[in-house]
């Protein structure tokens, strides 16, 4: 079971996670968007140091906690890291 998230703002955009459309909030971190959508994302440091939350965004491996949600970005959850 991963962390459940409660947002203070209503989703205002859509991103694509592993091929599926998921609603998200512009500018929130991808980590929050993934957790709020119920994806079992590991999260620990929240500041791009521990690399537990690695995902692939548009072909780049990034920490989901450091990446902000932009409309329509494509995220793959199962390919990043070692």
């Amino acid at each position: 079971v991963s962390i459940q998230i409660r947002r203070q703002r209503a989703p205002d955009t859509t991103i694509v996670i592993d091929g599926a459309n998921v609603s998200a909030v512009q500018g929130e971190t991808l980590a929050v968007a993934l957790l709020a959508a119920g994806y079992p994302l590991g999260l620990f440091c929240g500041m791009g140091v521990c690399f537990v939350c690695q995902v692939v965004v548009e072909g780049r491996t990034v920490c989901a906690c450091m990446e902000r949600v932009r409309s329509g970005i494509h995220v793959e959850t199962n390919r990043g890291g070692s």
Partner: protein
Amino acid sequence: VGEVEVLIVGAGPAGIGAAAETTRHGLQTVLVDSREQPGGQFYARPTGAAWAGLPDEVTEGLNLDYLEMRPASEVWAAFPDMTFGVAGPYGGELFRPRCVVLATGAFEAPIPFPGWDAAGVISAGAAQLMVKESLAVPSGRVVVAGSGPFLLVVASQLVQAGAQVTAVIEAVHTLGHVRMLPALAMRPRRATETLRYLLRLRGVNVERGRKVLAVESGCLICDGKRHPFDVLCVGHGFKPRLELSRLLGCEETRLGVRVDHLQQTTISCVWAAGEVTGIGGVELSHSEGRVAGLAIADQMRGIPADSRRRLRTWVRRRRLAASFASTLRSVFARPEPLAAATDATCICRCESVTLGTMRRVAQVAPEGDIARSLKALLRCGMGPCQGATCWDAIESFVGGIEGTPPRPRLPVGVVRVGTLAESDKPVVALGEDGRK
């Protein structure tokens, strides 16, 4: 190679303070930060215009005509000839500044305990950033535990943002906190701040003098008491980010980079400001940044009388902030990193290495070769985080047998191979020890 006058690494309270003073005095300054917006962890906020949302007093004096920003970028290399490699969203660049300010800040240094790698356990900083950047909170029962003034801040911010904080567990006993009272009495702003945090936590079970011992089936176990949680936010304090200062060969104190009264390090043209010189909080960091910026401007151009007055003011503010920081340090001593770990506790999360496995390797490792054996046989500290998460524990495990910690290697952080290829430095040949 970009020739600039000043390169500032880190756009937190210290880096901004330095940049405000160097650009005010007309020095061409490049400001690099790993975040998209300047402000650092402390002023992390929802996205918007670069400088929007920062207090005016923090950016006072900043002249954007002399400032070049490198957001979402990492300084991946610091070469002894004062060349710095910067990798950003648009590729790699090299800078050769006349002066550099290391304002790299700090990261949370976790203490491993049984279950710290379980789902639902996050760092206190991660919880805070969730609130500050994404305006979101963890739902369900939230427990905040560990030690340090930061816990109170995070717990109160979580409560304010609507999280259901069921307990705050602080290792330091109430009597320990009493030692802060004289320092707080002398600093009304800090006292009101602390009072505000405590008021927000009315009704929350705050327990002092209880250490985090373990997480077991969704419960935090502290000195015999069980606290069920959905999300546990743990924090045991911060450590300065010293990779770049070590690559440059700066001397250190036991708190961080050693600096003189003008924030200059033991290496000429290298300055350091903020948490990297010792954990001290936002006021101390910003004052140090201001002092560094003014001192650099004075050294390179000479500063007018009003700037000299400002320098004296910032030196005074730095002294006050430093004395408060040292009081906090004496109250919240960091626990021994392995105090709560058992043989089954995972130490290096990236490579899933337990303390027991490390002990077995240490038994067969040649004398004086434990650190290297841990890396060679177990890949301890060699995963994606490059030891950022476990280094404190590993260092403590090796326990001084190996002497000083190994030199950091390039690149610092994560860099695309393409970025290295773009730089005109023969990176591969750069390891001074000839091992790279």
